[in-house]
Protein backbone atom coordinates (compact mmCIF):
# COMPACT_ATOMS: atom_id res chain seq x y z
CA UNK A 1 0.00 0.00 0.00
CA UNK A 2 1.44 3.42 -0.90
CA UNK A 3 2.16 5.70 2.06
CA UNK A 4 -0.31 8.40 2.98
CA UNK A 5 0.92 11.73 1.50
CA UNK A 6 -0.18 13.51 4.66
CA UNK A 7 2.31 11.48 6.68
CA UNK A 8 5.09 13.51 4.97
CA UNK A 9 3.69 16.84 6.17
CA UNK A 10 4.77 19.41 7.07
CA UNK A 11 7.52 19.42 4.46
CA UNK A 12 10.72 21.33 5.15
CA UNK A 13 10.77 24.56 3.15
CA UNK A 14 13.66 23.54 0.89
CA UNK A 15 11.99 20.23 0.00
CA UNK A 16 8.71 21.93 -0.87
CA UNK A 17 10.48 24.49 -3.05
CA UNK A 18 12.24 21.72 -4.97
CA UNK A 19 9.01 19.79 -5.45
CA UNK A 20 7.30 22.96 -6.70
CA UNK A 21 10.18 23.55 -9.12
CA UNK A 22 9.71 20.03 -10.50
CA UNK A 23 5.96 20.45 -11.03
CA UNK A 24 6.87 22.40 -14.18
CA UNK A 25 8.68 19.37 -15.63
CA UNK A 26 11.93 17.45 -15.46
CA UNK A 27 14.92 19.61 -14.54
CA UNK A 28 18.59 19.24 -13.69
CA UNK A 29 20.11 20.53 -10.47
CA UNK A 30 21.11 23.98 -11.64
CA UNK A 31 17.74 24.54 -13.33
CA UNK A 32 15.99 23.59 -10.07
CA UNK A 33 18.16 26.09 -8.22
CA UNK A 34 17.18 28.84 -10.67
CA UNK A 35 13.49 27.88 -10.54
CA UNK A 36 13.47 28.02 -6.74
CA UNK A 37 15.01 31.46 -6.81
CA UNK A 38 12.51 32.67 -9.40
CA UNK A 39 9.45 31.20 -7.68
CA UNK A 40 10.41 32.79 -4.36
CA UNK A 41 11.22 36.14 -5.98
CA UNK A 42 14.85 35.78 -4.93
CA UNK A 43 14.06 35.21 -1.25
CA UNK A 44 15.19 31.57 -1.23
CA UNK A 45 18.69 31.14 -2.63
CA UNK A 46 19.94 27.61 -2.37
CA UNK A 47 23.59 26.74 -2.40
CA UNK A 48 24.76 23.69 -4.38
CA UNK A 49 25.16 21.43 -1.34
CA UNK A 50 21.77 22.41 0.11
CA UNK A 51 20.19 21.62 -3.24
CA UNK A 52 21.77 18.19 -3.61
CA UNK A 53 21.24 17.37 0.06
CA UNK A 54 17.56 18.16 -0.42
CA UNK A 55 17.39 16.12 -3.63
CA UNK A 56 19.07 13.20 -1.87
CA UNK A 57 16.40 13.24 0.85
CA UNK A 58 13.59 13.53 -1.68
CA UNK A 59 14.98 10.61 -3.70
CA UNK A 60 15.34 8.52 -0.51
CA UNK A 61 11.70 9.27 0.39
CA UNK A 62 10.57 8.32 -3.16
CA UNK A 63 9.17 11.77 -3.83
CA UNK A 64 11.61 12.46 -6.66
CA UNK A 65 13.48 10.17 -9.03
CA UNK A 66 16.30 10.50 -11.48
CA UNK A 67 15.37 10.24 -15.13
CA UNK A 68 17.33 9.46 -18.29
CA UNK A 69 14.94 11.45 -20.44
CA UNK A 70 16.44 14.66 -21.83
CA UNK A 71 14.29 17.64 -22.88
CA UNK A 72 16.71 18.37 -25.74
CA UNK A 73 19.30 16.19 -27.44
CA UNK A 74 22.04 18.85 -27.30
CA UNK A 75 21.97 18.94 -23.51
CA UNK A 76 25.08 18.03 -21.52
CA UNK A 77 24.93 14.26 -21.05
CA UNK A 78 26.68 14.51 -17.67
CA UNK A 79 23.77 16.40 -16.14
CA UNK A 80 21.37 14.39 -14.06
CA UNK A 81 17.69 15.16 -14.47
CA UNK A 82 15.07 14.75 -11.79
CA UNK A 83 11.30 14.35 -11.93
CA UNK A 84 8.43 14.07 -9.52
CA UNK A 85 7.09 10.62 -8.70
CA UNK A 86 3.37 9.99 -8.28
CA UNK A 87 3.84 10.10 -4.52
CA UNK A 88 5.87 13.31 -4.86
CA UNK A 89 3.02 14.95 -6.75
CA UNK A 90 0.50 13.88 -4.13
CA UNK A 91 2.70 15.13 -1.29
CA UNK A 92 3.30 18.44 -3.08
CA UNK A 93 -0.45 18.88 -3.56
CA UNK A 94 -1.16 18.00 0.09
CA UNK A 95 1.45 20.49 1.31
CA UNK A 96 0.06 23.19 -0.99
CA UNK A 97 -3.45 22.54 0.41
CA UNK A 98 -2.12 22.70 3.95
CA UNK A 99 -0.39 26.01 3.35
CA UNK A 100 -3.46 27.39 1.55
CA UNK A 101 -5.73 26.62 4.49
CA UNK A 102 -3.13 28.05 6.88
CA UNK A 103 -2.91 31.23 4.82
CA UNK A 104 -6.72 31.43 4.77
CA UNK A 105 -6.85 31.26 8.58
CA UNK A 106 -4.12 33.87 8.86
CA UNK A 107 -5.96 36.22 6.50
CA UNK A 108 -9.26 35.82 8.29
CA UNK A 109 -7.72 36.32 11.75
CA UNK A 110 -5.60 39.28 10.87
CA UNK A 111 -7.14 42.71 10.63
CA UNK A 112 -7.98 43.60 7.02
CA UNK A 113 -5.35 46.32 6.95
CA UNK A 114 -2.58 43.89 7.86
CA UNK A 115 -3.69 40.89 5.85
Amino acid sequence: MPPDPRSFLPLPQAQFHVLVALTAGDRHGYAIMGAVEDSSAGVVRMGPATLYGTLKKLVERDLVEETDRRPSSDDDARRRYYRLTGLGEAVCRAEADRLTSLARIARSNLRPGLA
Partner: protein
Amino acid sequence: MLLYPRDFRDRYGDDLVQTLTDLSRELGPRRAWRRATLDLVVTVPRYRMETLMKEEHRSTFLTFAITLMACAGIVFLLVDGGPWGLFVSAVLWAVAAVVAITQRSKLARSMDSVDGTRLRRRRLITAAALALLLPVMYVASLYILGDHWGTDAIVAFSLWFVVLIAAVCYFIAGITTPKSSAISQ
Protein backbone atom coordinates in the same frame (compact mmCIF):
# COMPACT_ATOMS: atom_id res chain seq x y z
CA MET B 1 34.49 18.44 -1.22
CA LEU B 2 36.43 16.21 1.17
CA LEU B 3 34.57 17.76 4.08
CA TYR B 4 31.31 16.11 3.06
CA PRO B 5 30.40 12.54 4.05
CA ARG B 6 31.70 9.94 1.61
CA ASP B 7 28.33 8.70 0.33
CA PHE B 8 27.18 12.25 -0.42
CA ARG B 9 30.49 13.04 -2.11
CA ASP B 10 30.44 9.89 -4.23
CA ARG B 11 26.87 10.40 -5.31
CA TYR B 12 26.74 14.15 -5.89
CA GLY B 13 30.36 15.29 -6.14
CA ASP B 14 30.31 15.72 -9.94
CA ASP B 15 26.92 17.46 -9.83
CA LEU B 16 28.17 19.88 -7.17
CA VAL B 17 31.17 20.80 -9.29
CA GLN B 18 28.97 21.18 -12.38
CA THR B 19 26.50 23.40 -10.51
CA LEU B 20 29.28 25.52 -9.08
CA THR B 21 30.70 25.94 -12.57
CA ASP B 22 27.26 27.02 -13.87
CA LEU B 23 26.83 29.37 -10.94
CA SER B 24 30.25 30.85 -11.51
CA ARG B 25 29.43 31.44 -15.18
CA GLU B 26 26.20 33.22 -14.31
CA LEU B 27 27.11 35.21 -11.20
CA GLY B 28 30.86 35.52 -11.59
CA PRO B 29 33.44 33.53 -9.63
CA ARG B 30 33.42 35.80 -6.60
CA ARG B 31 29.69 35.70 -5.91
CA ALA B 32 29.48 32.02 -6.77
CA TRP B 33 32.24 31.11 -4.33
CA ARG B 34 30.72 33.32 -1.64
CA ARG B 35 27.43 31.49 -1.96
CA ALA B 36 29.13 28.10 -2.07
CA THR B 37 31.28 28.90 0.98
CA LEU B 38 28.29 30.00 3.04
CA ASP B 39 26.50 26.88 1.93
CA LEU B 40 29.50 24.76 2.90
CA VAL B 41 29.65 26.23 6.41
CA VAL B 42 25.97 25.41 6.96
CA THR B 43 25.74 22.03 5.28
CA VAL B 44 28.98 20.26 6.26
CA PRO B 45 28.18 19.98 9.99
CA ARG B 46 24.55 19.14 9.22
CA TYR B 47 25.32 16.34 6.77
CA ARG B 48 28.10 15.01 9.00
CA MET B 49 25.70 14.92 11.93
CA GLU B 50 23.00 13.25 9.84
CA THR B 51 25.46 10.56 8.74
CA LEU B 52 26.57 10.07 12.32
CA MET B 53 22.99 9.71 13.53
CA LYS B 54 22.06 7.07 10.96
CA GLU B 55 20.99 3.79 12.50
CA GLU B 56 24.25 1.98 11.77
CA HIS B 57 26.38 4.72 13.39
CA ARG B 58 23.99 5.69 16.16
CA SER B 59 25.19 3.20 18.76
CA THR B 60 28.84 4.20 18.27
CA PHE B 61 27.94 7.87 18.59
CA LEU B 62 25.79 7.28 21.66
CA THR B 63 28.37 5.07 23.34
CA PHE B 64 31.06 7.64 22.63
CA ALA B 65 28.91 10.51 23.95
CA ILE B 66 27.95 8.63 27.13
CA THR B 67 31.55 7.54 27.82
CA LEU B 68 32.85 11.05 27.16
CA MET B 69 30.37 12.63 29.55
CA ALA B 70 31.07 10.06 32.26
CA CYS B 71 34.84 10.51 31.88
CA ALA B 72 34.53 14.30 31.82
CA GLY B 73 32.68 14.01 35.12
CA ILE B 74 35.61 12.12 36.64
CA VAL B 75 38.08 14.68 35.29
CA PHE B 76 36.09 17.56 36.80
CA LEU B 77 36.01 15.82 40.15
CA LEU B 78 39.77 15.18 40.08
CA VAL B 79 40.68 18.69 38.94
CA ASP B 80 38.34 20.48 41.33
CA GLY B 81 37.36 18.42 44.36
CA GLY B 82 35.26 21.27 45.77
CA PRO B 83 31.53 21.85 45.51
CA TRP B 84 31.81 23.27 41.97
CA GLY B 85 33.66 20.21 40.65
CA LEU B 86 31.20 17.92 42.41
CA PHE B 87 28.25 19.82 40.93
CA VAL B 88 29.60 19.69 37.34
CA SER B 89 30.46 16.00 37.74
CA ALA B 90 27.01 15.21 39.08
CA VAL B 91 25.36 17.05 36.15
CA LEU B 92 27.53 15.23 33.59
CA TRP B 93 26.88 11.82 35.15
CA ALA B 94 23.17 12.55 35.38
CA VAL B 95 23.03 13.55 31.68
CA ALA B 96 25.05 10.45 30.71
CA ALA B 97 22.71 8.24 32.76
CA VAL B 98 19.58 9.85 31.26
CA VAL B 99 20.94 9.43 27.70
CA ALA B 100 21.87 5.80 28.38
CA ILE B 101 18.47 5.01 29.92
CA THR B 102 16.36 6.80 27.29
CA GLN B 103 18.37 5.40 24.37
CA ARG B 104 18.76 1.86 25.73
CA SER B 105 16.43 0.30 23.16
CA LYS B 106 18.35 1.90 20.27
CA LEU B 107 21.64 0.73 21.72
CA ALA B 108 20.31 -2.80 22.17
CA ARG B 109 18.72 -2.89 18.69
CA SER B 110 21.86 -1.70 16.94
CA MET B 111 23.88 -4.34 18.80
CA ASP B 112 21.69 -6.99 17.24
CA SER B 113 22.03 -5.77 13.66
CA VAL B 114 25.80 -5.48 13.36
CA ASP B 115 28.37 -8.10 12.51
CA GLY B 116 29.28 -9.35 15.98
CA THR B 117 32.68 -10.77 15.07
CA ARG B 118 33.77 -7.50 13.49
CA LEU B 119 32.45 -5.42 16.36
CA ARG B 120 34.14 -7.66 18.92
CA ARG B 121 37.47 -7.44 17.08
CA ARG B 122 37.16 -3.66 16.70
CA ARG B 123 36.47 -3.20 20.40
CA LEU B 124 39.33 -5.43 21.48
CA ILE B 125 41.73 -3.68 19.09
CA THR B 126 40.64 -0.31 20.48
CA ALA B 127 41.17 -1.61 24.02
CA ALA B 128 44.66 -2.82 23.08
CA ALA B 129 45.52 0.50 21.42
CA LEU B 130 44.36 2.42 24.49
CA ALA B 131 46.28 0.06 26.77
CA LEU B 132 49.44 0.68 24.72
CA LEU B 133 48.83 4.39 25.04
CA LEU B 134 48.94 4.22 28.85
CA PRO B 135 52.69 3.61 29.33
CA VAL B 136 53.45 6.10 26.55
CA MET B 137 51.38 8.75 28.30
CA TYR B 138 53.00 7.90 31.63
CA VAL B 139 56.55 8.20 30.29
CA ALA B 140 55.65 11.37 28.37
CA SER B 141 54.14 12.97 31.45
CA LEU B 142 57.24 12.11 33.52
CA TYR B 143 59.46 13.59 30.83
CA ILE B 144 57.38 16.75 30.40
CA LEU B 145 56.48 17.41 34.02
CA GLY B 146 59.68 16.23 35.70
CA ASP B 147 59.53 16.76 39.45
CA HIS B 148 56.90 19.46 39.19
CA TRP B 149 53.56 18.19 40.52
CA GLY B 150 51.04 21.00 40.13
CA THR B 151 47.80 21.44 38.18
CA ASP B 152 49.52 20.12 35.04
CA ALA B 153 50.15 16.83 36.76
CA ILE B 154 46.51 16.59 37.90
CA VAL B 155 45.32 17.18 34.32
CA ALA B 156 47.84 14.65 32.98
CA PHE B 157 46.81 12.09 35.58
CA SER B 158 43.13 12.73 34.78
CA LEU B 159 43.74 12.13 31.09
CA TRP B 160 45.67 8.97 31.90
CA PHE B 161 42.79 7.85 34.12
CA VAL B 162 40.26 8.55 31.34
CA VAL B 163 42.28 6.45 28.87
CA LEU B 164 42.52 3.68 31.47
CA ILE B 165 38.74 3.68 31.99
CA ALA B 166 38.13 3.73 28.24
CA ALA B 167 40.53 0.79 27.75
CA VAL B 168 38.79 -1.23 30.46
CA CYS B 169 35.33 -0.34 29.06
CA TYR B 170 36.33 -1.35 25.54
CA PHE B 171 37.90 -4.57 26.80
CA ILE B 172 34.79 -5.54 28.77
CA ALA B 173 32.53 -4.55 25.83
CA GLY B 174 34.77 -6.57 23.50
CA ILE B 175 34.82 -9.81 25.46
CA THR B 176 31.07 -9.60 26.19
CA THR B 177 30.15 -8.98 22.53
CA PRO B 178 28.88 -12.26 21.09
CA LYS B 179 30.33 -13.44 17.79
CA SER B 180 28.14 -13.34 14.68
CA SER B 181 26.87 -16.88 15.07
CA ALA B 182 25.67 -16.12 18.57
CA ILE B 183 23.79 -12.95 17.60
CA SER B 184 20.13 -13.37 16.82
CA GLN B 185 19.43 -12.16 13.29
